[in-house]
């Protein structure tokens, strides 16, 4: 239960922050990607700094989280061809539309309703990719 409550509160603050920064508006994201307004770099930079201090700090000070099994910080995943091709495909989509998985959801909350097309697109993309992978033998 505590995982659901903290995820809801965290998501609320996260979503409010995205809306405040304008990241829920594809126009603002595209103006960053076209290097006309570097604001989004500041958003990612400040957020990363906060999360870096919290992740590294808490996982070093405490043995385990107060209400969980372990702090989920690790460097285990290998860089593969899939990582590289996947990141290129992600960048293509991001550059065409100015949307990403979190901002599309927060955008719906602000009333930016056309982002429902982005959400439908993400659901379809994850479905098709999952179906293709399912035809191949299980790997990690």
């Amino acid at each position, binding site marked *: 239960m505590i*995982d659901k409550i903290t*995820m*809801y509160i965290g998501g*609320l*603050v*996260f*979503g*409010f922050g995205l*809306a*405040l920064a*304008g990241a829920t*508006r594809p*126009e603002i994201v595209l103006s960053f990607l076209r*290097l006309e*307004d*570097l*604001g989004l770099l*500041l958003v990612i930079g*400040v*957020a*990363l700094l*906060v*999360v*870096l201090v*919290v992740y590294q700090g808490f996982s070093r000070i405490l043995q385990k*989280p107060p209400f*969980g099994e372990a*702090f989920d910080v*690790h460097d285990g995943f290998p860089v593969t061809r899939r990582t*590289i091709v*996947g990141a290129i*495909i*992600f*960048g*293509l*989509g*991001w*550059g*065409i*539309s100015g*949307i990403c*998985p979190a901002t599309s*959801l*927060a955008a*719906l*909350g*602000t*009333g*930016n309703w*056309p*982002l429902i*097309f982005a959400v439908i*697109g*993400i659901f379809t*993309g994850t479905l098709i*990719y*999952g*179906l293709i992978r*399912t035809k191949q033998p*299980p790997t990690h």
Partner: protein
Amino acid sequence: MLETYFPLGISQYAWGGLLVGLGISIPFIFTGLVTGVSSFYTAAWSYLLKGWFFRSAWYLKSRGWKWWLVAGLISGGLLYALAYGTPPVTTVPWWRLLLGGFLVGVGARMSGGCTSGHAICGLASLEKVSLVATIIFLTTAIVVALLTEQIFI
């Protein structure tokens, strides 16, 4: 100088970034969980589909709280609209949102994360794979956005 790179000012970006960072930190401090958003979409399919990719232990274990994260994100956007008024609705054509969303969905699942998963949570976890993915998707997106500016509005 500042107006050149930040024509809309910097305060909303700095405060927004601070809140994004705090929002991602809150669940971690209490439960150790990492707030990547893209895996929600696959975890949601796990209710309907039986393929091994959808039924990995992680999706089955995390899909319960992922709905709450999504409800939080939508509520956060709603709270902003209630406090400051509804921001302008996007004029980016629907087919670009749909196509972009599709590619973002495929790419995030293939590379193992999205903007929050790789560029914030992954980098904060000092994961090499996230550094590689972030550099590649950021560079690709900048090139695509600059090129498409000539074609689209």
